[in-house]
């Protein structure tokens, strides 16, 4: 059919009229209604949906905050406090937005962790994974610029330290820093452009999230067993099975979120950011927001400035090539006894780096950071490529339905190839 109305089976006549001309309801039904989804997800598979909800919360609260916020170095701090005091439920908007950033990173870190543990980055999902890394980088940039906006001491000095990192690059470094600052120090021009970009980047994130989901719906989801569904007995329609499961996860997520917002709204922040920015007074310890601490620890673990900056960026950029560093055909760590332990140790190294990043740059934290950072990189660059060759994986289950239902019907032909080799 080259052209003409779409053949819609939407029952409602009004919706059908639209659907025949623009089949978005058919598409929604296909992608979110009947979309075949592996039947064996555990609760780690909630975090993609949670991240989506979190992004929408951030955009919604952010738009309302921007209506009351003044991006000027002499007024920004007081305008934020005005939101807290005089705007109707402004304190709620701001605390949801500020803690929403922390929740977003918690959710996304778990989402990334799940991808690494169950091998979701492996073929055919490499591009899906790489788009996820792009989203994470955009999130980091957005969160960093958002933290600058209240123009407190940590805003100002965090911005100074982080933007100065770019000066480590030879030749273009100073030029990049001047461009970021819009002048020769962190000042009003910096605040203005950060506000503008902080408003822009979330919509770029929305765009890349869309691509992330498009890619997901081509390859289909991975699952805890890491083997592909072999037929309809291995999958369930997304609705109502996973809409129901995601709904429960969403409420649990809201409980944690509400606990932070209503009872510990400043727990994850830093008291110094309630002191107005003062270019003449440097805080005793400049620390970024908690979600940057692992990368901050890697930066400080390297004695050379350029080396530290490269290692810091490299610690995330290495994720891009993860699908090609780990050549093992087995996805899920459940069936990789050695890689599983190595990956759990990598998780420990990440948490150790997070802890060290919040400590002053002195012993023993620097040495601990160095060991943790060394393991962080060794896992990707040495251990995974090596294990791809030498590790003997455990036998994989014949199919998802076999593993879940304990001996359901096997489709003809599926039994002929018991090992899934991606």
């Amino acid at each position, binding site marked *: 059919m080259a052209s003409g109305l779409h053949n819609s089976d939407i029952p409602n006549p009004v919706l059908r009229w639209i659907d025949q001309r623009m089949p978005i309801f058919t598409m929604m039904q296909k992608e979110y209604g009947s979309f075949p989804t592996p*039947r064996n997800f*555990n*609760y*780690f598979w909630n975090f993609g949906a949670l991240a989506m909800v979190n992004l929408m919360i951030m955009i919604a609260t952010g738009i309302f905050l921007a209506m009351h916020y003044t991006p000027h170095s002499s007024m920004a701090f*007081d305008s934020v*406090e*005005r939101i*807290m*005091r005089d705007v109707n439920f402004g*304190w*709620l908007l701001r*605390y949801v937005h500020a803690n929403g950033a*922390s929740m977003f990173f*918690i959710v996304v*870190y*778990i989402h990334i*962790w799940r991808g690494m543990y169950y091998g979701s980055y492996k073929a055919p999902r490499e591009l899906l994974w790489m788009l996820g890394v792009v989203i994470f980088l955009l999130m980091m940039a957005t969160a960093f610029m958002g933290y600058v906006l209240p123009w407190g001491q940590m805003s100002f000095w965090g911005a100074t330290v982080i933007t100065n990192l770019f000066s480590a690059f030879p030749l273009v470094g100073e030029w990049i820093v001047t461009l970021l600052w819009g002048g020769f120090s962190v000042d009003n021009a910096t605040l203005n452009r950060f506000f503008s970009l902080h408003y822009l980047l979330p919509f770029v994130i929305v765009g890349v999230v869309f691509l992330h989901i498009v890619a997901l719906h081509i390859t289909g989801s991975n699952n*805890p067993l890491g083997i592909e569904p072999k037929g309809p007995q291995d999958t*369930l329609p997304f609705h*109502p*099975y996973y809409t*129901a*499961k995601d*709904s*429960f996860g*969403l*409420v*649990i997520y*809201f*409980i*944690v979120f*509400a*606990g932070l*917002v*209503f*009872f510990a*709204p*400043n*727990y*994850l922040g*830093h*008291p*110094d950011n*309630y*002191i107005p920015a003062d270019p003449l007074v440097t805080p*005793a*310890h400049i*620390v970024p927001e*908690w979600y940057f*601490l692992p990368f901050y620890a890697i930066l400080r673990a390297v004695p050379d400035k350029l080396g530290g900056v490269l290692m810091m960026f490299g610690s995330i950029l290495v994720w891009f090539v993860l699908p090609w560093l780990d050549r093992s055909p087995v996805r899920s760590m459940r069936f990789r006894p050695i890689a599983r332990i190595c990956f759990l140790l990598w*998780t420990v190294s990440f*948490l150790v780096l*997070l*802890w060290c*990043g*919040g*400590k*002053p740059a002195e012993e023993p934290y620097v040495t601990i950071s160095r060991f943790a950072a060394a393991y962080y990189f060794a896992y990707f660059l040495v251990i995974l490529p090596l294990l791809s060759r030498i590790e003997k994986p455990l036998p994989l289950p014949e199919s998802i339905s076999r593993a*879940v*239902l304990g001996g359901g019907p096997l489709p003809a032909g599926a039994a002929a190839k018991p090992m899934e080799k991606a």
Partner: protein
Amino acid sequence: MLRTSLKALAILGGLLAAAPAAQAAEGAAHIPNQGFSFQGPFGVYDRASAQRGFQVYSQVCSACHAMHLMSYRNLRDLGLTEQQVAAIASQVQVQDGPNDEGQMFERPGRPSDRFRSPFPNPQAARAANNGALPPDLSVIAKAREGGANYIYALLTGYGDPPPDVHIAEGMHYNAYFPGHQIAMARPLNPDQVEFADHTPATVENMARDVATFLQWAAEPELELRHSMGIKIIVFLLVLAGLAYAVKRKIWANAH
């Protein structure tokens, strides 16, 4: 399923627990917890204490410390009547204008005015205080590690320095101030103010009251936040039960 969700919780807990490590800077003295009424998820402000704290602020602290984010009208939230707030506001002279002739003029304060600042600018504040800048106290309880407990500790932490500690000229020893040398002289002395409710004006009482007042000034939304939070969490717990029941029902034939 339970095992993995426990694992997820453990990771989340780890992330949350590691976060305040970022703040555990400074080798400062341990700040004792005073058990203020506003602490905890059900905490509310002790109105009488906060009102006395405002009296201490206006008779003692406000000689040097501004609170430029506060308006006199905010005091009504502490239980003061409209007349009382208007009377308090009218005791100060504020600059207004320009008038029709283009002149600035002084007039008595109104409830809508911000608290009058003791100094016109930071330079004047430094000149009058031996080079030190008395910080604005509007959000001080949020701007210091330990919050109100720190304020109480600081105000009661003056004393003679230990023999091995050298105190610079014009500085004072304080057990809780980071570095132990503070430019502010001991601000509270016994019976410095007279409370209308006959509360004894001991240093401890005044420190406690002013810490309560400053906490209220920094977080005027705290009571509403707590009461909303309780309702929302209870609602979400019920909703979680329902959502789980729905999930179980839907999945009943899928396992």
